[in-house]
């Protein structure tokens, strides 16, 4: 069992190398701390359109020339709404189905989802009719309206509707957007109501009375599941775990290149050790380290207020995902070590690849869905990031993250085979 000895050796070397240990644990821990602090009280940019989704389920009301879809009217009003004394729109409205909207909301690709119910137009009409009736009767008196005045009192409506506003209540941008949406809808309803009353009261002396109609359209704000108590930090914490794992690329590349440079690899090559012993033994050790790293960084995140969703199952799943991401990092490290001419070059190359990689995969920056996100989906670290986010922050189950997990495993296997082949051919054969 020579690979077990190699695994033990690699693990001892890893934990005794304070520089590497510091880089892999302290560096991401500091990032975790910075993000933890930064995203608990930071503000948001003003005067920019917020990405929202409006799902208009409104079936409209009336027939023929009387037909109107007030939900569409409301959507247009929201689309055209601008900041005060500015031409900048409040919202950039995106199209999506209800399911897509929820995913985009979870990924914070959009700030808010507004769902206009199918009875919206009928409920608004109920509001108009009831308000007008109340206004007329209170101004004149129902029994005192002579037929010759030609006033037909509208029937009181009974239809009610509820506009659903969904978002992550811990997301500061949502707080702002929610109040804007509520303001616009309430303003719309007031305008519609007062316009109707004004029209009905035309020709009748006196000031139109204040509406006393009951609420026909109510607004309901719903936080998406699993994030009610979360903060922006919850979105970044899984990314920082992936960032920590990515730093393992540097450690692995450096460690293997050092074996070459110090000629300890030559000592192993002339022994009975096979390529399998070296690479599998090292893999076991480094993967174990990756698992421990996930646990430690997760612990730090928890201490900083990270809201973990999903219980111990999600944690176990996250460790598993971390280990697979670790294997991807080891594979990349092998590839770098196969081509690096010195330890220093391996370290520099590892840094040059791993750090920008963390930005590219979206550890620190969220990317809107599009060509770029489709391209970076071929990177196992991106799939790892999405999987960890789903599992830890949104409490998704194994079944729910299976697509990401499958892509992660396939991409990791491809990278691992490439790493093993390159290192074996270039470093483990006689010179």
């Amino acid at each position: 069992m020579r690979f077990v000895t190699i695994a033990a050796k690699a693990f001892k070397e890893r934990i005794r190398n304070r520089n590497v240990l510091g880089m892999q644990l302290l560096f991401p821990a500091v990032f975790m701390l910075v993000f933890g602090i930064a995203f608990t009280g930071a503000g948001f940019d003003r005067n920019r359109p917020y990405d929202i989704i409006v799902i208009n389920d409104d079936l409209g009301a009336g027939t023929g020339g009387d037909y109107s879809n007030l939900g569409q009217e409301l959507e247009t009003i929201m689309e055209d709404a601008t900041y005060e004394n500015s031409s900048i729109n409040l919202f950039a409205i995106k199209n999506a189905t209800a399911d897509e909207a929820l995913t985009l909301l979870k990924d914070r690709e959009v700030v808010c989802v507004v769902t206009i119910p199918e009875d919206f137009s009928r409920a608004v009409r109920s509001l108009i009719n009831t308000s007008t009736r109340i206004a007329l009767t209170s101004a004149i008196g129902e029994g005192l309206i002579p037929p010759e005045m030609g006033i037909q009192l509208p029937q009181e409506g009974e239809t009610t509707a509820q506009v659903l506003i969904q978002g992550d209540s811990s997301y500061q941008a949502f707080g702002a957007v929610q109040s804007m949406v509520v303001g616009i809808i309430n303003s719309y309803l007031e305008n519609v109501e007062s316009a109707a009353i004004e029209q009905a009261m035309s020709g009748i002396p006196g000031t139109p009375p204040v509406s006393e109609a009951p609420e026909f359209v109510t607004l309901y704000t719903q936080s998406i599941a699993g994030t009610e108590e979360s903060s922006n930090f919850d979105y970044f914490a899984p990314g920082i775990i992936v960032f920590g794992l990515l730093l393992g690329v540097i450690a692995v590349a450096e460690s293997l290149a050092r074996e070459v440079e110090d000629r300890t690899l030559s000592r192993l090559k002339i022994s009975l050790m096979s390529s399998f012993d070296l690479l599998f033994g090292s893999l076991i050790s480094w993967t174990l380290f990756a698992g421990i790293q996930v646990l430690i960084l997760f612990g730090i995140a928890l201490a900083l207020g990270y809201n973990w969703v999903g219980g111990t199952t999600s944690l176990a799943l996250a460790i598993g995902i971390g280990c697979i991401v670790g294997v991807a990092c080891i594979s990349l490290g092998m590839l770098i070590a196969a081509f690096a001419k010195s330890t220093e070059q391996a370290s520099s190359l590892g840094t040059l690849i791993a750090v920008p990689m963390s930005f590219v995969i979206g550890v620190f920056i969220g990317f809107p869905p599009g060509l770029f996100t489709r391209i970076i989906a071929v990177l196992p670290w991106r799939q790892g990031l999405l999987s960890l986010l789903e599992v830890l922050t949104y409490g998704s189950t194994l079944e729910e993250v299976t697509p990401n997990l499958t892509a992660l495993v396939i991409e990791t296997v491809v990278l691992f085979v490439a790493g093993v082949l390159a290192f074996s051919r270039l470093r483990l054969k006689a010179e």
Partner: protein
Amino acid sequence: MSSAEHDDIAIQTEGLTKVFPGDVRAVDGLDLQIRRGEVFGFLGPNGAGKTTSIRMMTGLLKPTSGKVVVNGELIERVSGKSKKRIGVCPQEIVLWNLLTCTENLTLVASMYDVPGGDGRDRAEDLLEELQLTEKSDTLAGNLSGGMKRRLNVAMAMVHDPEIMVLDEPTAGLDPQSRLVVTGLIDRVKREERKTIILTTHMMEIADQLSDRVAIIDHGKLLKLDTPENLKNQIGAGDVMDIALVDESLNETALKALGDLQGVQETTVLRGKVVVRALDVARRLPEIFQTLESIGAKVSDVSLRRNTLEDVFIALTGRKLRE
């Protein structure tokens, strides 16, 4: 070659050649037969091709042409069993700096499938013999240079190989550490009758430990014989190195001393007149008188026995360290 002779050969090279890019011929057609149980000294200056030859003999470097046969197997096809029979101490210190001395040794033992307990016992014995017991739990990276070099030697022996390749095992060692290492090699030679290939540029070490010595330079084998035979081939007797105050008289002194009876050879090397003669100590008055007669004043004089370095000088006209 008969079967018995074949069985007696531990390592054989035939036309072994290595040409590096830039047409640098590091080893040039080396034919060697290293017998079982002998200490085979590889003597030559730095850059002579010793280490390159060793790297090819252990399978770390592919030869440009020629072949290496270990225990009857071509090195590139050598079996695990034969691999276990070879231990290599490279010229560079090759240790895992973040492992302790014991961990370094047991790791290598494990790589040769030595059972855990045996590996630890063997490591303890070697550490004791190399006076490193107190450092057994110290990280290799924290050892002094001499200690690292000693541990480097132990790494080649921990799996108890039949053939030990020791490439400059005493390079850079202080006299005390050198004694410890040469003592170990000497004991292994006497008590265990292992085959030891010892490369060195230190003639005293090669002379002291080797059964046979191969002198190589510019990748070619110049001479191969026992140290005594090699020394006898260039003449018996002692050597006297004379430094004159006025070096311009060196050539005159050379001729005058060469004419003396019993003087076998005179030469000028690095500004000194070198005289080889039988019983040179008794001839000192005669030598000084001759020098005085040509007006040469002596600034320094030293007397020594004939060495392998003299053999090398006779063969190449250069000193080993030049």
